[in-house]
């Protein structure tokens, strides 16, 4: 059985191989987020204090910074994919949908860049 339409067969149109991209990245980020979130929650709850000196020293450790950056990136990407589907389902009207999707994307990029830069700044010793 083929899933290609007769017209697509005649026109010789094959798969653009992008149909599963959203699905695949959502799975990829979810797999990454299992250990990353587990590490984050355990690390956070293990910290002796939440004062600035303790937190910046913690973020200053190389692997803390690495995992925090990966956490922010994977979470932002995963969140963007999830919120996008919700918008696609519940926001009606082409114009409104496009606008909200654009805002959602911009917002996630801002969150990701701010998070990564904040971690880098602390890790590289700029949070005096």
């Amino acid at each position: 059985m083929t899933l290609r339409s007769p017209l697509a067969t005649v026109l010789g149109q094959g798969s653009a191989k992008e149909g599963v991209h959203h699905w695949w990245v959502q799975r990829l980020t979810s797999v990454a987020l299992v250990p990353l979130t587990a590490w984050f929650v355990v690390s956070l709850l293990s910290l002796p204090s939440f004062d600035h000196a303790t937190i910046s020293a913690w973020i200053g450790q190389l692997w803390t910074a690495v995992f925090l950056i990966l956490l922010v990136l994977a979470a932002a990407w995963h969140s963007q994919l999830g919120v996008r589907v919700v918008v696609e389902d519940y926001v009606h009207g082409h114009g409104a949908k496009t606008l909200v999707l654009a805002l959602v994307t911009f917002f996630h990029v801002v969150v990701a860049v701010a998070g990564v830069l904040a971690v880098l700044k602390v890790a590289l010793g700029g949070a005096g």
Partner: protein
Amino acid sequence: MTERPLSPHLSVYRMSRYTLLTSIVNRATGLVLSVGLILLVYWLVAVASGPAAYNGARTVLSLGVLKAVYVILLATFAYHLFAGIRHLIWDTGHGLERAQAKRSAALVLICAILLFVGLAWWALHAGARAP
């Protein structure tokens, strides 16, 4: 858009069915966790902004309202984690039979409650020594 006929939905489904419920709860918890991501980045930016700014942000983050949010975040994290793992197992083609899906729905709920209670207990004790 509004003139187009819409097939009857929502009202025709039995909302109490576990299939529908687990699906919508997974989506809702995902949205809540997106808010959690904003809080996380707000906190990271505060750390990067220096001790004075951090103490200001800490006052905001210690508000009673946000403590309720942290409890909700912990619960939603616990649920979304196990519901997500259930989805990943489904993706491998396993556990799709009706009886198995019903069992795994219950298992997700039990694991989520156990993890939530464990983490909340830990957070309470951590909070006792470091507010």
